[in-house]
């Protein structure tokens, strides 16, 4: 840390609550402004890449075994653009580019076999009630250790998984009309997924479907649940704006964790685009430190 930053941190420690709030909001506002073109490019490139694997593999141009890790990457990185859309980061209701926000929200999670509406409704509840055992839909992702978290995540696709039941419970207490649409979307996308798998199997391509969709999906769900749900909220005993989420160091770095090492900034200011969150964290760090947040020694 430079001398200037130490001086800043010292000044910040002496600030009043009101001054801290103002400074934090000012940093957030600067990072929220304007569309992030990188986050617009990402979902389209990712989806096109994954879709193009299918004809390449089915025509024998590309080995399914080579396509498998690419599919894993694509499916793992399909969630975050939809996550941006869930928070109206691309465009808010009534904005000119609102259609883009909704299109990315729905389309980017096709490889993840997930409904944008289900994800949005449950994720916003997660933000409202983080770490609340009764109201946080992602509370079941808590686990005492990384290995236990991975094992839990492996069970997410079980027919009666904790996550499925928790999401159903959450939808049941929200707006019935929106919840009905969300459930309908979920059924359609799951039936479509099964239809594709059955058709592939019937034509002698079950192995290709397994390596392009089934196995990468199972592994991607572990990766996503681990870094998006477990790691940033571990141990998950506390609630409150500045205590329910943490920053953490990871061997995988910021990119390898999909930017989740600085997830605390996302919970505080959900409309900051993902690619700008690390920079926002670095600027906010002294403020978060003054607020006694768990920063896990990140960027010390």
């Amino acid at each position, binding site marked *: 840390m430079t001398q200037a930053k130490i001086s800043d941190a010292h000044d910040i420690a002496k600030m009043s609550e009101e001054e801290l709030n103002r400074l934090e909001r000012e940093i957030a506002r600067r990072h929220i402004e304007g569309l992030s073109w990188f986050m617009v490019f990402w979902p389209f490139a990712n989806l096109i890449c994954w879709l193009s694997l299918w004809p390449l593999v089915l025509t024998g141009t590309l080995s399914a075994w080579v396509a498998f890790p690419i599919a894993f990457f694509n499916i793992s990185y399909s969630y975050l653009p939809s996550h941006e859309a869930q928070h109206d980061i691309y465009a808010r209701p009534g904005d000119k580019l609102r259609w883009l926000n909704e299109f990315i929200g729905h389309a980017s999670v096709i490889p993840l076999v997930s409904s944008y509406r289900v994800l949005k409704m449950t994720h916003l509840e997660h933000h409202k009630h983080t770490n609340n055992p009764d109201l946080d839909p992602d509370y079941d992702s808590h686990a005492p250790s990384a290995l236990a978290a991975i094992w839990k995540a492996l*069970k997410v696709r*079980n027919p009666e998984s904790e996550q499925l039941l928790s999401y159903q419970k959450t939808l049941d207490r929200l707006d019935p009309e929106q919840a009905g649409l969300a459930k309908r979307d979920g059924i359609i996308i799951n039936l479509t997924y099964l239809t594709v*798998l059955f058709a592939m199997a019937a034509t002698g391509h079950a192995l290709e479907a397994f390596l392009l969709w089934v196995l990468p999906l199972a592994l991607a769900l572990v990766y996503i649940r681990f870094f998006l749900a477990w790691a940033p909220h571990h141990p998950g005993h506390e609630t409150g704006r500045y205590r329910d989420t943490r920053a953490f160091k990871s061997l995988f770095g910021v990119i390898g964790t999909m930017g989740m090492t600085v997830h605390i900034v996302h919970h505080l200011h959900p409309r900051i685009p993902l690619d700008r969150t690390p920079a926002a964290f670095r600027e906010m760090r002294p403020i978060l430190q003054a607020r006694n947040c768990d920063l896990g020694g990140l960027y010390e």
Partner: protein
Amino acid sequence: MPIWYGLFFIGPLLAEITLRTSIFTPALDFLGNTLPIGVIGTVETLPVYGICITIGGTYGLIAQVTGRWI
């Protein structure tokens, strides 16, 4: 739904893994060396897809009843 998934995807997948890859070869070689010749002869005449679809359907049925694949 898990039953359908077991019957129409997991079963054919197991069959394709058996017929198109060498993943199960060590296990099949082991069985070939340990089981009585009469049993091996009988098993070899059975349809691979039929056996695998039965296994997949059974696994799907168990998943349906217990609510879990693993």
